[in-house]
């Protein structure tokens, strides 16, 4: 991964009001992929709030990571329509292709498999997200094909 900015540099661009918590969490998450325990302590010091408050906020949001994840985070929709459209088969295909179970990251750190909630593509299910890109009308073969394209 390329050189990412240090916390001090990131924090210096934000004020010390609590309103800055979400933008800071977003920035660290986006640039570094996750927000570590150390990051949270430094954010807490900067905003003069408790570190537990930062932790509670960060863990509330599924799209903020608190641990390192794979290069590609795959979120398969687990909501009703996608489930009825064959989510289970897609899940099995993804696990086989990624080489790890749901909730886990592959050994080569390429893929993390997760379930997500409705992404608004109920008419085109099953659907999944690969980082920020949506893929719809999945079949097991299509899912494998998508993963094989990701390097």
């Amino acid at each position: 991964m390329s050189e990412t900015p240090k916390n001090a540099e990131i924090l210096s661009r934000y004020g010390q009001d609590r309103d800055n918590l979400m933008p800071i969490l977003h920035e660290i998450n986006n640039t570094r992929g996750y927000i570590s325990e150390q990051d949270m302590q430094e954010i807490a010091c900067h905003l003069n709030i408790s570190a537990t408050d930062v932790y509670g906020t960060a863990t509330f949001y599924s799209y903020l990571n608190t641990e390192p994840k794979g290069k590609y985070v795959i979120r398969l929709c687990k909501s009703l329509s996608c489930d009825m459209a064959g989510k289970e088969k897609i899940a099995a295909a993804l696990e086989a292709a990624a080489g790890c179970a749901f909730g886990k990251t592959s050994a080569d750190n390429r893929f993390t498999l997760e379930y997500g909630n409705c992404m608004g593509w109920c008419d085109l299910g099953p659907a999944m997200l690969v980082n920020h890109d949506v893929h719809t009308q999945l079949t097991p073969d299509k899912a494998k094909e998508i993963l094989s394209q990701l390097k």
Partner: protein
Amino acid sequence: MSDKLIQIQINGKEYEVPEGSTILEACRKAGWHVPTLCHHDDLTIAGICRICVVEVEGWRTLQAACATPVAPNMKIHTYSDKVRLARRNILELMLADHYGECYSCLRNQKCELQKLAYEYGIDEYYFGHKTERKWKVDESSYSVVRDKDKCIQCNRCIRTCEGIQTVGIFDKVFKGHDCTVDTFWNHPMRETICINCGQCINRCPTAALKEKNETDLVWEAIADPTKTVVIQTAPAPRSAIGEEFGLPPGVCVTKKLNTALRAIGFDKVLDTNFTADLTIMEEGTELLMRLKKALTGEDCIKNATLPMITSCSPGWVKFCEHFFPEQLDHLSTCKSPQQMFGALIKTYVAEKMNVEPKNIVSVALMPCTAKKFECNRPEMHDSGFKDVDFGLTTREMGQMIRETGIKILDLPESDFDNPIGHGSGAGMIFGATGGVMEAALRTAYELVTGRPVPFKDLDIVPVRGMDGVREAEVKLENVKPEWSFLEGVTAKFAVAHGTGNARVLLDQIKEGKSPYHFIEIMACPGGCLGGGGMPIPTNLEVRKARAKAIYAEDHAMDIRKSHENKLVMELYKDFLGEPLGHKSHKLLHTHYTPRGKKAVDPKGSV
């Protein structure tokens, strides 16, 4: 809340209530009981448990009474069918996710969830019941034990720690089904910046938070014939232990408690008021020396930082170590009365009793959970042994007495044991916020001027009461020749209780704007009488009642000034030498550890 009254109807009856009050406040005022669980009078409104729901005519859904303001002509029903069914469902859902059985629970008969289950006639687990633990009980802390499986997520501990104490070790983490109340990164309590005050325990409706129970270890020591078990009792527990046996708050049972402790098997029952008096002698002298150095430049004491702040409250001390480590020089170097006593019991008292210090087990009955942590500090070994072996809370002692079957309220009264078994009224009021300040003033003023403090009956009323921060000043005139540098000085004092209030005074010091010479800080609201080890419930009314009892006991004492305690003077003559002298310094004074507010304490809390 405004003065304007509005007309509302509760259960078909008309009432006039202040505009802006909540439905809960209106109902309570009108005498209608509405059950609560997440609501606590000391805390901000949460409105999350929904047990207080009521029906409002014309409104589609039930409303949480604690979080809904009254409106003109509102028609409220507090026990309609819809309301009762909803409350029952809420309770059944809570019980489905609440581990354990009532009869094997420390809070049996003192649990708010259990009480509500009784109130609403719950006789089965309609939605099932959690029969297996999901989490390990966290017993890592010397003071506070956490049992997450019993947590009902009322957020009271979060609001206490963050709102009242401004420490903030708890928060809701993760969400939905995975949501728990937790510490930073789920670290064990010992590794957090918990100040051990136990205020969260006092407000926890269930047994999700409790003190580290050490009664079995004390029983074991009592049963050991080779051990001499000595107990000291602090003033606050005496004003409250009666509550554990059905007395209303505000009745001191000091002398009955002495008898009960002997019946339990303690070999000596000593009075912490004695070392409170000793604290005043040491701390008062320290204050005067700091003032002397500041005003005359004479090098009479090493640390002359002003304002000087009291150091009796171990919760406050740890708070300062975490949040204001750069201001630790403001703390008096005096140990707390508990630890002074500990150091004396295994030296002076051991000698007097003719017992080897290693065979003494020193127990302290305290209103406090932080005292457990304090006695385990590595520096508290000045007697050559662990100065205080166990700190028991008022609740734990209630438990020990219950186990004996002794009817404490029917017992005859008895006095403390000597050689250091007599304290003054000044020592007694250490138990209330403002008490240490008042006791110090009674002695320091008289030492300097030769006259008693200029307040009727020695009651220094401006430092009493329950306001978060209070201040007072005394002009020093016609002082004794040896204190001439104080002539004409207006000495300024401040008192704060609850570390949130303390923060106000500490921030002032940080900004260089503090006008005070001497500050008293207690970690718990109300001081020791509102301590984290006191009987549950503790709220403002209860704290006021206990304070009244403590001040009444002060009035009834034969001596009310620390420097008039003959036994203290004898101790100086026989053993210690003089205040701040060499021996005092070794046994009665301490130092502090700058810890910083990083949520994980690398030193593992001690």
